[in-house]
């Protein structure tokens, strides 16, 4: 496929890694914020090909991983209702809530369906006027434009049996929370390429100025990732504090303006709890009050549900780059992809699942911040 195959050229990747090796003169800690990049890095062994001076830590950019436990419980409560068809992206089905997941609801007779696009859920609402169709609208900025379009489309079609359960999160507030932490170790950021395809990268210069660290918009193919790392290392070595774009075929500074306008029409910024991390102020999007009719939390009266995390799981520290998955005493023992304690072991984009799957449990311990 054009625009993919040429970015998987092993010789070019090797060449760029050589250049990184020649450029680096001292240790640097970089964070890739995006779970898709975490998965690609570990899958292609990029973390093991890099010179030892470069340490990659994995950020909280996996919406499946950071969706708070009580929101999963709310989804379970709604999906268990006999009058509901509950639609979700596939990777949410195995995420454990308090003791159950969406698969177990399905096994007990609940109508839970995996959809490829939110428009498929709208289509189901149109085809099933006697059922309530609920779509689990999770994601970062990349998934927000498709998710909000489902609401506008349902409104346009006059559907009164469609609503969404929203758990949207935003990248810049998460970066701010990580960099603002007293135990922060991150010296350079690889910014999420597809989030930036939607939002551009105009939100980052103030963060770069405030925290004095470089950030580089990075894509997802192996060549994109090493190019992003090279650019970040070049900026760090030159002492340049700026935002750069190493994914310009898909991303420009302003981003997708029609998409941003539509998001702001339907969503407003809200405080959001991140699983394993806790509340990050104004870090999420929720439905504006004028769309209350499409708000599943209100429609099914599940707003009061709360929940507590497993005390064994250290996902919160992993999601902030303070610990690596194999530093968790439960990793690969009480916690595996078949029996996950926390969401970072459930989603293929979770750092724990990637480490487990690609055998990164035998890496020598790196020196980590005490906390």
């Amino acid at each position, binding site marked *: *496929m*054009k*625009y*993919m195959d*040429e970015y998987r050229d092993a*010789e*070019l990747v*090797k*060449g*760029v890694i*050589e*250049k990184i090796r*020649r450029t680096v003169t001292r240790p640097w800690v970089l964070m890739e914020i*995006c*779970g*898709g990049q975490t998965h690609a890095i570990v899958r292609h062994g990029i973390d093991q090909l890099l010179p030892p001076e470069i340490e990659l830590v994995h950020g909280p*950019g*996996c*919406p*499946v991983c950071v969706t708070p436990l009580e929101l999963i419980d709310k989804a379970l409560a709604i999906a268990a209702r006999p009058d509901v068809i509950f639609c979700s*992206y596939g*990777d949410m089905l195995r995420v454990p809530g308090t003791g159950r997941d969406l698969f177990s609801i399905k096994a007990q007779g609940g109508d839970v369906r995996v959809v*490829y*696009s*939110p*428009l*498929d859920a709208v289509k189901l609402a149109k085809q099933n006027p006697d059922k309530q169709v609920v779509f689990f609208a*999770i*994601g*970062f900025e*990349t*998934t927000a*434009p*498709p998710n909000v*379009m489902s609401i506008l*489309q349902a409104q*346009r*079609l006059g559907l009164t049996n469609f609503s969404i359960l929203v758990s949207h999160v935003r990248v810049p507030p998460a970066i701010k929370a990580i960099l603002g932490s007293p135990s922060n170790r991150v010296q350079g950021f690889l910014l*999420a390429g*597809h*989030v930036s*395809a*939607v939002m551009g990268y105009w939100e980052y210069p103030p963060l770069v100025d405030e925290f004095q660290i470089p950030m580089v918009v990075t894509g*997802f193919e192996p*060549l994109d990732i090493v*190019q992003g790392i*090279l650019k970040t290392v070049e900026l760090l070595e030159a002492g340049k504090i700026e935002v750069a774009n*190493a994914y*310009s*075929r*898909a*991303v*420009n500074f302003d981003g*997708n303006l*029609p*998409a941003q306008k*539509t998001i702001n029409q339907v969503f407003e910024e809200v405080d959001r709890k991140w699983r394993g991390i806790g509340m990050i102020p104004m870090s999420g999007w929720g439905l504006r009050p004028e769309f209350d009719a499409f708000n599943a939390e209100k429609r099914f009266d599940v707003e009061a549900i709360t929940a507590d995390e497993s005390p064994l799981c250290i996902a919160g520290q992993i999601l902030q780059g303070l610990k690596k998955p194999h530093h968790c005493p439960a990793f690969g023992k009480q916690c595996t992809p078949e029996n996950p304690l926390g969401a970072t072991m459930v*989603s293929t*984009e979770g750092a724990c699942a990637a480490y487990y799957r690609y055998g990164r449990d035998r890496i020598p311990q790196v020196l980590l911040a005490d906390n």
Partner: protein
Amino acid sequence: MCLAIPGKIVEIFERDGLKMAKVDYGNIFRETCLEYVPEAQVGEYCVVHVGFAISVMNEEDAQESLALLKEISDIEEELGKEDAP
């Protein structure tokens, strides 16, 4: 979750008031919503996420950056030969 893949627009049409397209992902064809890339044309490549095009590929930038990466790779190969005993 934020994975998106490039696809080639082969046909543009409208359904239920939405601008849609038939998109070719290496001989796998899927319907894709073009509402957020109203300027996209047949023959162009777009980046698609959960059934929606979120940006149009910039061919010129793609060529430029690939050329630059090839240059880096060639130089490193040369330098590597010099380093060899």
